[in-house]
C-alpha cells in the first residue's frame, strides 16, 4: 500500500500541477527554475491510528518562490484555496488539512518566498469491520 506521505505529496503535486499557478512543483529547491515555482516537503510524520485503522499525522511545508512580491501574494492565496479540495486517493482518506503557519521572507537581493505550513491527518480507507 502506498504510504500516507507519498499519497499526500502526490495529491498535492497533482493538484498544483492542474493549475497554472506555478511553473513547476519540486521536492527540493531546484538549481534553475522559472518563477514562480513551488517546493513541497513532508517533514514530520507521526502515528495517528485508532482501533482498526492506521492513521498518520504529517507536517507539510509548501514553499512558494517568486521574484514579484505582488504576484506571490496572489498565488499563495490561490494555492491555499486550491488545497482546500485536496483528495489523498483510494488508499488514504485526508481527514483534515489545516494551515498551521504562513510566513513571507526575502533574501537580500534575491527572490521572495512564502512558506505555508500544513498539518495533514490521514486515515486508511475503510476495509470492513464486522465479526
Amino acid at each position: 500500500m502506498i504510504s500516507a506521505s507519498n499519497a499526500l505529496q502526490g495529491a498535492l503535486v497533482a493538484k498544483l500541477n492542474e493549475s497554472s499557478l506555478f511553473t513547476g512543483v519540486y521536492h527540493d529547491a531546484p538549481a534553475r527554475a522559472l518563477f514562480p515555482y513551488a517546493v513541497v516537503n513532508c517533514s514530520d510524520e507521526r502515528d495517528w491510528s485508532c482501533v482498526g485503522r492506521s492513521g498518520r499525522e504529517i507536517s507539510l511545508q509548501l514553499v512558494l518562490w517568486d521574484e514579484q512580491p505582488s504576484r506571490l501574494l496572489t498565488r499563495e492565496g490561490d494555492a491555499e484555496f486550491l488545497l482546500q479540495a485536496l483528495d489523498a486517493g483510494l488508499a488514504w482518506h485526508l481527514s483534515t488539512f489545516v494551515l498551521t503557519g504562513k510566513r513571507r521572507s526575502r533574501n537580500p537581493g534575491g527572490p521572495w518566498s512564502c512558506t505555508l505550513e500544513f498539518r495533514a491527518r490521514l486515515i486508511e480507507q475503510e476495509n470492513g469491520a464486522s465479526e
Partner: protein
Amino acid sequence: MSLPLRGSDCVLRICDPGTSSSFVLVEGVRLSSWKILQEQVAVTDGGDEGWRRLLPGAGLRSLELAFSGMYLGSIGEHLLRDKAFRGESVECALTLDEGTAVRGRFIALSLSFEAMVNDEATYAATLRSAGAVTID
C-alpha cells in the same frame, strides 16, 4: 511467557439482537477502559476493634466500560448512538486480547460528542452493565 497487552488489541464490538446476530466493531476508539464496581455490605461490629468488616459475596456488582475516540460514522457508532438516544441496552463484547472477552448487555450512561472547527469530531461514552457479565 507473559507479554504486554497492546491497547490496539482492546476492541469493542456491539450487537443489536433485535435486528442482527452479528457484532460490529465500534470504530475510531483511541482509549478504552473498564472497571468492576462492587457495592460494599459492612457487617462491622464491636468485636472488630475499629476495623471495617465487609461481607464477602454480598452487594451488587456491575461493570463499567468507558471509551473515547474519533468519530468515523461507522455502523457500530451509529448503533451505539441510536441505543443511547432510546435508552436501550446493547449486547457488548470487549475483547482484551486474542483469548479473553468481556460480554454482557450494557446501557449507555453517557455519550458525548465534541467537534472543534479544523479538527476531527470525537466522542466519548460510558456504558454500565445491565445484567450479568461474563469474562472468558
